[in-house]
Structure formats: C-alpha cells, structure tokens
C-alpha cells in the first residue's frame, strides 16, 4: 500500500518535471529564418551562413517526390521530410565554425554545410 503510494508520488513528480520543461519555452519572435531546398537529392544552397550564438530556424523544403532525412551529427539534428512538404528544424545557438549535414537517404549526393560566423 505504502509502496504503491510512493510509486505514484514519484511518477507524479517526474511527470511534473517533464511538463515544466515543455512549457518553459523561448519566445519565437525575431528568430532568423533560412530556407534550404531539396531538389534532385541535392541541398540548395549547399553552404549556408548563419549568425553565431543565435537560435536559427531552418525551413527545409523537399521538392522531390520522395522523402529525405535531414541529419547532422555536429548539429545533433535528425528529421524526416516527406516529398513535397516543408519542415522546421531549429538549430543553435552555435559557436563559430563549420557544421556539415547530409541527407541520410541519399548521403552521397545530398550534403551541405552550415557556417556559423
């Protein structure tokens, strides 16, 4: 009985912690937005310059008719974008540097870099 009560109390505590984090979001206004297009399994532009130490919104528009996965180990981002759809990926704040990314479904051709300066 006590065991059960404690378990539920702990569960409640963890869930509260999770919900606190979810609603402690940052204001979305004034965030620089950049568009990257996927055409014929290639990223356009393949080199994108973004401001350093700033949160940036990437809108990835997949103009092919097959899905592509935007992935980057350096940026720690992974997202599937269906053909003909757009998707939003938030990156940053980034230290100045070069951050490569690739399309996991077509890694040989779909490659690009994000330069933060």
């Amino acid at each position: 009985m006590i065991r059960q009560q404690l378990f539920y109390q702990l569960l409640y505590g963890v869930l509260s912690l999770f919900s606190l984090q979810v609603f402690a979001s940052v204001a979305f206004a004034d965030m620089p937005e950049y568009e990257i297009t996927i055409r014929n399994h290639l990223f356009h532009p393949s080199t994108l310059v973004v401001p350093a130490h700033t949160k940036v919104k990437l809108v990835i528009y997949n103009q092919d008719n097959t899905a592509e996965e935007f992935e980057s180990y350096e940026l720690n981002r992974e997202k599937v974008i269906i053909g003909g759809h757009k998707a939003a990926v938030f990156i940053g704040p980034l230290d100045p540097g070069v951050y490569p990314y690739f399309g996991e479904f077509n890694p040989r051709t779909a490659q690009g870099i994000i330069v933060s300066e």
Partner: protein
Amino acid sequence: MLINSVIIILSEVLEAAILIALLLVLTRQLNMHWHWLIAGTSGGAALSWIYGVFLGDVSDLFGGVGQEVVNVLLQMGIYLCLSLIIYVAASLRVNQVMRNTVYGAMVLATMFVITHEGAEIYLFLSGFWGASGAAVSVYSGAAIGLGIGCSLGVLFFVLFTWVPDRAAKAITLAVLALVAAGVCLQTVQLLVQANWITSSTPVWDTSILVGEHSVGGQLLHVIFGYEASPSGIELGVYLLSLTFSAALVLLPRTIEARRPCWAQPLAK
C-alpha cells in the same frame, strides 16, 4: 546504394532489436510467456505503416514540429513501460496482476519502439518503390540490414545467458535502467530540436575517444544513449532517470526493511 541501404536499415532495426532482446532476457528470468512479442511486433508494424503514411500531415502540426511531438510521446510511452517493468521485476512479492501489467507493458514498449523505427524504414523504402534500377539494391540492402540487426539482437540475448544466475536479474535491470535513461535523453533531444526546450553548450566532447560516426559509437548510442558532446540538460535528465530507476528498485526494499518485526510478513 546497397551499402547505404544496409546501414540505414541496420541502425533503425538495431535500436528496436536491442530493446526487444533485453525484454526477452527479462521474460526468461521471470519465467513469463514470450508471446507478448507477437502482439508487439504485429501491432508495431501496423502502427508504423499508418504513421509513415500520415507523417507529412503529422509533421505540419504544432508549427512544423508535429513529428518531434509524436516521437516524444512514443519515447515517453516506452520510458513509462520500462519503468513499470523495472519496478515489478525488482519487487519482492509479485502477484498475477503485476505479472499481467508487465506483460502489457512489454507489448506496448515493443509496439512504440517498432512504430518509431518502422515509420522511417517505411518512408525510406517507399521512396524507391518502382524505381527499377535502384530498387533491387535498396531492397536487398534492406533485407541484409534487417538480418544483421536481428542477428545482433540474438547475440545480445545470448550474451545475457552467460551471466551467472545470481547476478543475472540485477545486471538485466541495470542495463534496462540505462536503456530507459537513453530513451529519456532522446526525448530531451527531440524537445530541443522542436525548440520547446532551450539547448545549452556541451559539457564535454569525447568524440576524440569514441566518435558518434564510428561503429562503436553507434552501438554505444543504441544501448546506452551515448552522446559525444552532451549538454547540461541532457546530462541532468540522464542522471535523473537513473536515479529514478534506482529509487524504483531500492525504495520498496528500504521500506520493507524498516517495518517493525511484528509487521514483517511471515516466512513461507
């Protein structure tokens, strides 16, 4: 193209295979039926197909981050199921209700993990449907990747049978707790990606030792949620998750030990 296909399918399948292998190990140790696997895999396959078909519309929800939100829900579902399993498996007295709950939790955890991985596999493979040249290499690569992934899962299962019986359950629960912590970590990363949590600078960078690209790094990532450069909040959530799992195991025993001797259950 074949190699790409193998690698992609392998990494997706591996995540599911490791978790399922771990649950099968626990099934063996608790002397439960393994038939939850059938319900879990078939339910998961069906759900992943549905998720894959509707991913485009789902993605557009919540201001473009619908995919992250659904994945977070799936991961949290897995985490709750794993926590429940850890709690019951570590319990001193287990009745039939608790056993049934564990059985249900294993079905759900399997379904959720297969849905998460299966949707990506479905999307990758459906893109090459009808593309005559590439299709053969892509689909054979997928079959090979699936085979390797399942074999690694079996290997993982067999490794656990080598552990001496006395330590077996403790080690299984410890690994399960680590996998659960890895699931929590993935949840945090998804929330950062969706901009629902602010990210912070990495605390350390061990990519010199084990890079995330490497085979070892990928394996460590799948089993333990290894991150070469974790941020403060990722680290915090990982440790919190481990602490919670430890509490699930240790608290009942501490309470039991502190009962006055006249309230202790009679020895069987």
